[in-house]
């Protein structure tokens, strides 16, 4: 079980969990016709390094400088949280037409998943006072969100924040997943 904090800070923090965050898949414009496709993710967690978020907030909001915006972030890295039961069945993206792999809940794959031994996923079991069922972060599905968008929506969409040691565990596993090297099969 992880530890979370419900207190809402003014700035975006690593480990913040937000609800109903939109990701723009594509935006097309052709001869005055505009088409925008958006995916709404019910829950996402912020993965950007906290020091970067702190500096962005300091120089964007607290002490804005007209000299340069060197510490500004373009966007914030987030990853979606899925319900663990949907993950087991591979149905967590069924509403957007994607079928994912099954993970046998009762056998080794499910146990490996819940023990955070699968590099792609991170299992979260929330305390009783947080109204979120057991969830999985899928590191492969990370995307980015505009900084101002998250700041503007923080008051309404913030749920809770994963506490420091636990968020650092998530951050470290995410970094490991991103930097993994897939070796080609050895041919004799």
């Amino acid at each position, binding site marked *: 079980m992880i530890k979370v904090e419900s207190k809402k800070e003014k700035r975006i923090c690593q480990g913040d969990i937000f609800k109903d965050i939109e990701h723009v*898949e594509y935006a097309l*414009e052709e001869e*005055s*016709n*505009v*088409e*925008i*496709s*958006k*995916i*709404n*993710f*019910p*829950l996402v967690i912020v993965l950007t390094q906290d020091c970067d978020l702190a500096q962005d907030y300091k120089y964007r909001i607290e002490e804005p400088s007209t000299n340069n915006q060197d510490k500004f972030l373009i966007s914030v890295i987030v990853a*979606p*949280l*899925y*319900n663990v*039961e*949907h993950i087991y069945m591979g*149905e*967590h*993206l*069924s*509403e*957007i*037409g994607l079928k994912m792999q099954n993970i046998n809940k009762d056998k080794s794959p499910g146990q490996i998943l819940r023990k955070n031994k699968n590099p792609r996923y991170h299992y979260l079991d*929330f305390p*009783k*006072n*947080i*109204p*979120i*069922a057991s*969830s999985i972060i899928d590191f492969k599905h990370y995307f980015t969100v505009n900084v101002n968008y998250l700041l503007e929506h923080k008051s309404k969409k913030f749920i809770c924040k994963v506490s420091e040691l636990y968020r650092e565990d998530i951050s470290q596993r995410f970094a490991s997943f991103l930097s993994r090297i897939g070796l080609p099969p050895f041919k004799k």
Partner: protein
Amino acid sequence: MGKSKEIFDEKYIKALPTDSSIQKKVEKKQEIEEEKSDSEPVKYIISKPTRKVIKAKIVHD
């Protein structure tokens, strides 16, 4: 016969709970259920991501 019936009826009527005692029992039960529901937090199942496609036409003045 009539007397025993009357006695039976009287005893039966006394054994029946009165409206106020039923009401107290119902209120007590509701209190217990509310306390129980307060202590058992509701866990929301995360819904699945959904897609929305917006189509619009730019109108030039």
